[in-house]
């Protein structure tokens, strides 16, 4: 005699979400537990277990020193899904377009002082390269993070980085039309590769791009590099611009900082979740301690050529440290 097996009944949601009391949100329905590569730790991908990419994911994702028994429990505090991301950012881009149009109509660029135009050429338009490194680094996190809910945050962050790059390219062309002799659209690569103002950030990001462990890459990019870059190159430069009547730069920066603040919200939440596991705080603190000097040097080097740069540098470093402290790190 064997018992007839139970016939599974239909559920109101996916079986993996069905045990909870609450009805799952749209966010949970479409975002959770999607990385099937996390199912079999011996062979993340359904091929020979010893191919390069299986070793890569075992080493840099599964065997990361940052441990958690259930990364899939991570939730984006903003609960963004693809659909709502586009609604949010289409609104932001519509706003940016109207700002660009208005400032173009009133010939904003021809009113800028020659000194400030020189600062834009040396400290603003080369950021196209820097933002691109953030884009690349974020896309690495998307392919390596241990949970789809983390990857989704980094995918939106990748797109946001391309957004910042695009704004910068746009402004580079506009500035080159009004100030043809200032090097806009011509000198950025050379400055990015050689100018002392950029070498700290270039060193930081080249090294962050080869931090292959997913959690170390997250630490280097989201906890150290981004607060430094956003503080100095976006918000700091914009503050200097305000003093030079470059309100356009300030408004663009404000819109970009909304993205940056969203990135910090999920990064803080992820740190908070990681800190639930004993031993993780030491791992994160050690990584931060390793990366922070590179970021601090980068901020100092970049700000030294800015009007009011000392103050911007100090504020950036203080705010970056405060962000990490608020997230629960040293």
């Amino acid at each position: 005699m064997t018992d007839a097996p139970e016939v599974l009944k239909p559920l109101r949601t996916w079986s993996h979400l069905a045990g909870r009391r609450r009805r799952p949100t749209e966010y949970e329905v479409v975002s959770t537990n999607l990385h099937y590569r996390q199912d079999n730790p011996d062979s993340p991908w359904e091929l020979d277990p010893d191919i390069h990419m299986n070793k890569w994911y075992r080493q840099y994702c599964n065997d990361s020193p940052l441990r958690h028994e259930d990364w899939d429990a991570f939730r984006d505090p903003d609960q963004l899904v693809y659909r709502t991301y586009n609604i949010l950012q289409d609104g932001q881009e519509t706003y940016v377009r109207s700002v660009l149009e208005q400032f173009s109509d009133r010939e904003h660029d021809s009113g800028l002082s020659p000194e400030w135009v020189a600062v834009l050429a040396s400290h603003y338009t080369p950021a196209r390269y820097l933002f691109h490194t953030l884009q690349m680094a974020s896309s690495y996190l998307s392919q390596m993070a241990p949970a789809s809910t983390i990857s989704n945050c980094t995918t939106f962050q990748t797109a946001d980085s391309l957004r910042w790059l695009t704004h910068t390219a746009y402004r580079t062309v506009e500035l080159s039309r009004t100030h043809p002799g200032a090097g806009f659209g011509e000198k950025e690569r050379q400055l990015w590769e050689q100018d002392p103002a950029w070498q700290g950030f270039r060193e930081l990001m080249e090294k962050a791009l080869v931090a292959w462990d997913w959690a170390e890459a997250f630490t280097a990019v989201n906890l150290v590099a981004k607060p430094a870059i956003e503080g100095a190159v976006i918000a700091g430069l914009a503050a200097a611009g305000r003093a030079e009547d470059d309100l356009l730069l300030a408004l663009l920066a404000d819109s970009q900082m909304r993205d940056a603040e969203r990135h910090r919200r999920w990064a803080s939440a992820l740190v908070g979740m990681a800190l639930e596991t004993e031993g993780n705080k030491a791992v994160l603190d050690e990584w931060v301690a390793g990366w922070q000097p590179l970021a601090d040097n980068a901020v100092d080097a970049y700000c030294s050529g800015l009007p009011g740069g000392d103050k911007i540098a100090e504020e950036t470093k203080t705010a970056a440290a405060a962000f990490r402290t608020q997230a629960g790190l040293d």
Partner: protein
Amino acid sequence: MPLLDRSEYYDLIRTTNWTPSYVPEDELYPEEMSGSRGIPMEKWETFDEPYKVAYGEYVANQREKDAGAYSVKAALERSNFVDNADPGWISILKAHYGAISVPEYAAMTGEARMARFSKAPGNRNMAVFGMMDETRHGQIQLYFAHEHTRRSRQWDWAHKAMHANEWGALAARHFFDDMMMTRDAISVSLMLTFAFETGFTNMQFLGLAADAAQAGDHTFANLISSIQTDEARHAQQGGPNLKILIENGKKDEAQQMIDVAFWRSWKLFSVLTGPMMDYYTPLESREQSFKEFMQEWIIGQFERQITDLGLDTPWYWDEFIRALDETHHGMHLGVWYWRPTVWWNPAAGVTPEDRDWLEEKYPGWNDTWGNVWDLIIENLTEGRPELTGPATLPMICNMSNIPIVGTPSNGWNVKDYPLVHNGRLYHFGSEPDRWCFEQDPERYQGHLNFIDRFLAGWIQPPDLSGGLAYMGLAPGEIGDDAHNYEWVARYMPAQAAAS
């Protein structure tokens, strides 16, 4: 002054290559992740994507597309299409969502591989939109399938399939992981975006959309056509890389990647899409046969694209064209026969009218496949249903991970293509499947297909119940005939005499 036109600043957006110095270039772009094949950075900067879009346009367009797809769904929700549709069509939806939703999300990782590791700046940017697109495709299909979970536990497989060791899901993972998850950036652009997306997703998304519209499933037709508009854009990343490879003396490598990816895609479609189009879709809703869709989308369009780019048609082209009359019929027969092992209810699709249609589209069908179905029908009409279900295991191919099939009965040609490699015997369903293995044995050699696992003792008890447990299929989920065998009545002696 008006806003700048995209063309005025687009080139700067993709002028982002720099010469690294704090980290060596080959560490920043490891060959196994990047796949630049010794072609210098400057050459990759000639990458020119035919379809251009900037960030602001992207979010505006995509917002509008989503608004369209979601509002059609909302508007039609009350019409209860799914409760009244032909069960064969419902099986298509269940099979599609299970096999496609989560792999689409996984394609985000393939796109991210390009976004991070391609040395072509244009490729890196386009792949960001590709990452976003695939996030969309995963999410929107999960969302659309989710409202049906209350109807049957089989709908749970829209999310669950890729986490299970069900044989079809295992085959899909082996395919997708090979094409898009474990390759370098340049290989992903050729194998995923060029070979698979340019050719085959057109089939799945436009071909099936045509059938869906015929069947009255406007929600699904609208959804998958909307997805295809994204595929049509991001599929265009492979072509420019292919051009760079050919210009730099790498034609043979490019050809090999395309040939592997194309064959593997074809085999997946023969088990997934072929049965849907020629058997599950109600007869009156069939826009064209699977073979006709293949001829239109693959032979007509894809063949021209590869030759235009300077490649040759794959060496097995004649065999591929021959197989268009065969493979998916065998796959369908196998899936229906082993119906408890899938998460949907296969529709037999062999009423007398269906068979007339099959004979017209595939002359000789009745003399081959038809004879096997006659035997099944005889067992069903004479009360021996136990003879129409699995008692033994099929042979499974070590490349496609799907059954080894051929033409049965009066056209008998079923054949194994074996290979001994490092002392292990492998089985393949065709010469091209074996050839794919031989191109890179190390990628595949340590993998166990479903039968290998059975023989290795992974599946306990070693019978159907153990197999179903290993596959994660329980009563309530396991498949059975979509129409509950009602069609068999057409072959009952009394009925047949009356008609």
